[in-house]
C-alpha cells in the first residue's frame, strides 16, 4: 500500500491533519449543539392558581365570544368560519362541536379547547378538552343539566403531563358582557377548574422517621 502521507511535504501534511482534526471537531460540535440547545422552547404564561377554601387549587380560564371562537359546526346551523362545510351525514345529526382559544385571568391566550355537545338517543353528552401547550391537556365530562345560577359542573376524567395525576371538577358559566363598548365581546364562557392531586401512599421508611 503506497504511503500517501509520507509523500506529502511538511506543510501539506499539517494541512491534512488540520482538516482531519476539523472533521472530528465538527462531529463533536454538531453532537454538542444538538444535545445542549433545545429544539423546541415553548412560551409559557405563568399560571394563576389560587388555593380553594375546601382544599385543592383553582384556576380560571375564559373564552371571549365571538372573537375566540375558532370553529363552530352543527347540522342546520350557521357555521364558523364562513365557508366551513359541516358534514351532512345522518350519523352526525345532533353533534355540535366548537373550538375556542382559551385565556387566563390576565386575558392572555394560553391554549385551545373543544366543547362538544351531543344528543344520542336518550343520552346527552357535553364534553370539554382543554389543551395548554407545555402544560398538558384535560378531559372534562360535564353534567348536562345546569345547576342553580346557570352554571354546569363536570368531572375531570383524564389529563396529560401536568394534569395526569390530577382529578377534580370544572364549571362552565356563560356571562353576558354588559359593557357598551363597540369592540367588547358579547360575553364570555368562564371555566373554573378545581384540581385535587391524587393521594399517594406514604413511604413506610419515611413515615416511621
Amino acid at each position, binding site marked *: 500500500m503506497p504511503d500517501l502521507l509520507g509523500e506529502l511535504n511538511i506543510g501539506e501534511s499539517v*494541512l*491534512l491533519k*488540520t*482538516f482531519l*482534526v*476539523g*472533521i472530528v*471537531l*465538527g*462531529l463533536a*460540535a*454538531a*453532537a454538542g449543539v*444538538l*444535545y445542549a440547545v*433545545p*429544539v*423546541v*422552547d*415553548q412560551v*409559557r*404564561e405563568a399560571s394563576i392558581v389560587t388555593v380553594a377554601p375546601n382544599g385543592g387549587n383553582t384556576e380560571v380560564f375564559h373564552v371571549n365570544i365571538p372573537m*375566540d371562537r*375558532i*370553529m363552530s359546526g352543527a347540522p342546520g346551523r350557521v357555521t364558523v*368560519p*364562513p*365557508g*366551513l*362545510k359541516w*358534514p351532512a351525514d345522518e*350519523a*352526525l345529526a*345532533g*353533534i355540535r*362541536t366548537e*373550538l375556542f*382559544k382559551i385565556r387566563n385571568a390576565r386575558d*392572555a*391566550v*394560553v391554549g*385551545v379547547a*373543544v366543547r*362538544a355537545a*351531543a344528543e*344520542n338517543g336518550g343520552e346527552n*353528552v357535553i*364534553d370539554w*378538552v382543554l*389543551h395548554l*401547550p*407545555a402544560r*398538558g*391537556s384535560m*378531559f372534562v365530562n360535564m353534567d348536562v343539566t345546569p345547576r342553580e345560577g346557570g352554571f354546569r359542573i363536570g368531572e375531570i*376524567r*383524564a*389529563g*396529560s*403531563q401536568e394534569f395526569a395525576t390530577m382529578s377534580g371538577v370544572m364549571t362552565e358559566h356563560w356571562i353576558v358582557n354588559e359593557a357598551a363598548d363597540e369592540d367588547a365581546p358579547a360575553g364570555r364562557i368562564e371555566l373554573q377548574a378545581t384540581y385535587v392531586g391524587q393521594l399517594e401512599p406514604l413511604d413506610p421508611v419515611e413515615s416511621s422517621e
Partner: protein
Amino acid sequence: MKYVISLVLGLLVGAGLFAAGLLFNPFAAAGGLSPLSVSKSEVIALNFANVPAESIAYTNDGESVQQPHPEKVLQLWEAPIRTTSAMTTVMRDARNRVAGIGVKFMSDSETTRLLQRDMIVDSVWYIYLPEHGSLFVEQTENYFPFVREVVFPAWRSSANGWRGNWRGDLSTGPGALGTAKVIGGSGRIEGLRMEGVEAMTVQAFSLDKGLVSAEGSLLIELPASRVADDEVMDLP
C-alpha cells in the same frame, strides 16, 4: 490562513457527516410492528383524512407549510399556542362509513431530541362516536421517521416533492409499548381505560403544500377482559 480554511472545511465536513449519520444510520432500529396489530381483543378502527384541505377545519400559526382550512379560520398566532395546530375531521370506520367526529390538538414537544432521533409532538384527540360514546386519546408522536423517509427525499428532489407509499406508526407513548392512553368518557365505553396506536399513510408530499395525499388511522383496543373470557376457557 490556509490552516484556518482547512480547519473550517473540516468542521463543515464533520457536521455534514454527523447529519448524514443521523439520517442514514444503518444500525438504527426500524419501526417495529404495532403492539395492537397482533391483539386478540376487540378493537375500534378509525380512519380519517390527514390532509388539511380534506378535513372539516384545520388551523395553525398561518406561517407553516400546511395552510389553514377553510381560508377564514382563526389562526393560532399568539406566542403560547404558536407551535400548536388543531384539526376537526370526520372519523370513518373500517368499512368507510361515517363513525363520528374527531378533534386533534398537536403541540411541538420540549422532549424533542434530534440526537436520539426524536421529533416529538404532544397530541390529544377528542372523539365522539355515536355508536360508542366519547373518547379522550393522549399520546406522544415521533415524526422523525416521516421526516427522514418522506420530507428529506422531497427536499432532495428537484421537484420539491415526494410520491410513493409510506406507512408508519406515529404513537410512541405514554404506554410502555409505545401506545397512546385512551379514556372513555361516555356511552358504552364510559370509564374504560384503553390503549391505542395512531398511524399515517402518505402517498404524496410537497415541500410547498405539505401533505398532498395522506390518511390517518387510529386503532383502539378495548380492555381484554370484556372479550377474552371465552378464549381463556378454551385453554387445556
